[in-house]
């Protein structure tokens, strides 16, 4: 249909990957900007963005189980931890202080972390099939506490609390990506790596949720009994949602500390789970782009609050003053979640939709 880009004549057209022309142009533009970023931005900001991209992979995973399939999981930190330790152990130094197998090839340990975490998700899934709503939320919360305990005690794997262990080694085709090469600095390479991985996993997720499986997830979310009546196998799809979500969490977990290079078992507490929930909710539940926006927003938030003392002199930059940056940050998390849920339940994605709709009919918008 030439000249009428928004007239769909087939279902396939309507559910196409990028179904409108603005989506295609804007996605392309964003890709170009993101790829040019390493040459325009300082290295420390690149590292932050790289962490944000990894967080986005994890947030997409949580969004699949919570946003699309409607199964509230507070246990995301547990699956992130499994991924992180699988990746770190596989690629770790075999002669080191902690467990390591010396398989440094990135695709190998990346997939392995995802698969191990996915398997863990599959083991947990029977609980999700039996439980609903808040019962499920609290049980998954229990997983986080159990995981924290296991990783605290299993010192030969994790190095123990306060000590930690080196993160996975990002080596692709024999090249260490975290070290500077002839063309790029280490952060630039990591940024590009994480960006490429994010694009891959975002496309995969988008394709999953617009398929038959994604429609089944949505049916389970909206009313699981009704979904069962129209022939959706609840046990199967809930298990699938958990497995896919945990796979994403495992992948994200194994990459999460690559940028920093070091992590300890204290990193995988309740706070991490809440952060991911915040990413999904602030970004917009049930959208892939929302999850990415939310993850970048939450990752960049500490950076923004660190700048506050220069603007508001009564906030002190270290931990000594009456109102410190760290307190402001913690309060800001809570307030942001509350404000977003009350004012814009669809999150950043919802704001974007409103902006888009305003300009679409401009100057005749109302």
């Amino acid at each position, binding site marked *: 249909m030439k000249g009428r880009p928004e007239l769909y004549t087939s279902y396939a057209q309507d559910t196409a990957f990028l179904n409108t022309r603005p989506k295609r142009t804007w996605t392309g533009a964003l890709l170009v900007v993101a790829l040019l970023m390493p040459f325009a931005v300082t290295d420390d900001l690149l590292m932050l963005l790289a962490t944000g991209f990894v967080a986005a992979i994890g947030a997409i995973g949580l969004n699949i189980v919570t946003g699309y399939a409607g199964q*509230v999981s507070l246990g995301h930190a547990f699956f992130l931890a499994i991924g992180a330790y699988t990746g770190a152990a596989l690629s770790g130094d075999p002669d080191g202080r902690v467990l390591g197998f010396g398989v440094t090839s990135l695709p190998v340990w990346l997939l392995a972390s995802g698969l191990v975490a996915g398997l863990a998700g599959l083991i947990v899934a*029977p*609980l999700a099939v*039996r*439980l*609903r*709503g*808040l*019962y499920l*939320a*609290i*049980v998954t*919360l*229990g997983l986080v*506490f*159990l995981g*924290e*305990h*296991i990783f*605290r*005690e299993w010192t030969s794997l994790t190095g123990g609390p306060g000590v930690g262990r080196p993160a996975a080694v990002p080596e692709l085709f024999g090249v260490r990506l975290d070290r500077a090469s002839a063309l790029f600095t280490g952060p630039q390479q990591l940024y590009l790596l994480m960006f490429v991985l994010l694009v891959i996993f975002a496309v995969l997720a988008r394709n999953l949720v617009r398929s038959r499986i994604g429609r089944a997830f949505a049916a389970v979310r909206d*009313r699981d*009994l*009704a979904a069962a*009546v129209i022939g959706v196998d609840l046990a199967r799809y809930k298990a699938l949602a958990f497995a896919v979500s945990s796979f994403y969490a495992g992948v994200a977990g194994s990459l999460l500390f690559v940028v920093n290079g070091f992590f300890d078992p204290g990193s995988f507490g*309740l706070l991490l789970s*809440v952060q991911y*929930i915040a990413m999904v*909710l602030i970004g917009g539940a049930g959208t892939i782009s929302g999850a990415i926006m939310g993850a970048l927003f939450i990752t960049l938030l500490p950076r923004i609050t660190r700048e506050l003392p220069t603007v508001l002199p009564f906030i002190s930059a270290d931990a000594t003053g*009456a*109102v410190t940056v760290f*307190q402001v940050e*913690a*309060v800001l*998390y*809570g*307030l*942001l*979640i*509350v404000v977003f*849920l*009350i004012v814009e*339940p669809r999150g950043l994605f919802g704001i974007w939709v409103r902006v888009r709709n305003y300009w679409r009919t401009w100057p005749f918008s109302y």
Partner: protein
Amino acid sequence: MTEFLQSLIRGLGSGSIYALLALGFVIIYKSTRVISFAQPAFMLAGAVLVSYLAAEVGFFVAVPVAAVLIAVLALGVERTVLRPMIGKPVFVVAIITIGVDVVVRVVTNAFIGLDVRQVGDPWGLSTVVLLGVEVQQRYLVMFGTTVAVVAVLFSFFRFSRVGLAMRAVAYDQEVALAQGISVGSVFALSWAIAGGLAALAGVFVATGAGVDQQLWVIALKALPAIILGGLDSLGGAVVGGLAVGVVESLVGTYQGDVAPWLGPNFALVAPYVLMLVVLLVRPYGLFGSKEVERL
């Protein structure tokens, strides 16, 4: 045997803390169908308030005053933050209570500082010999007070008009509204009761140990308790709370000898294991009512 009894009483003492917190969770859940994750913050705030008040007016005056003040605070939170959210999905409201929790806790932490604050309780760590077993007084006080509070609370729900109204709202909000019950004030009242209970629990946690910034973590143990007992059962909350306390204490006493491979701090996560096991057998907890599903 002495070791067992001591461990049991210790468990019942800390279990009564969990029971008080769990009661707050369940009361809020029954009336509003929402789990309030703000309970830890109210607990912390209650303990901190007592630590300030006790120096001025004495411990026994400070505790009820603090409980009432925290109840008013909880009521205010419900009125301002939660009331506009009525009708929103329960999960959204639950997340909002996490937000409230973080805000209240950070503000409270500013009043704690880096040191441990004492609540000025008369018991401390002193012990008493009961039937030949040496037990700490504070555990007996906790258990005794909790039994009394539970008795008062249950008779309030059973015999008073307001209690009847609350039960009616828990049963069916629309029908209760049609009978002339102000559902809104029942919501507010249930938050207030839960806040008061949390404050009392906070004081108990702080007796003998003091108040520090990590105190709130204890409140999370009430979560396995409510799931264990069933989200909508008051009796289940008490039983679940006591069970969690006793299991935690017994595991802490014996696991080092029986199963050392589980790690030294396994007692802290034992309640969650108990919860998982019970849920696999009974998905709605021990006393929870099964959800009726309609299309």
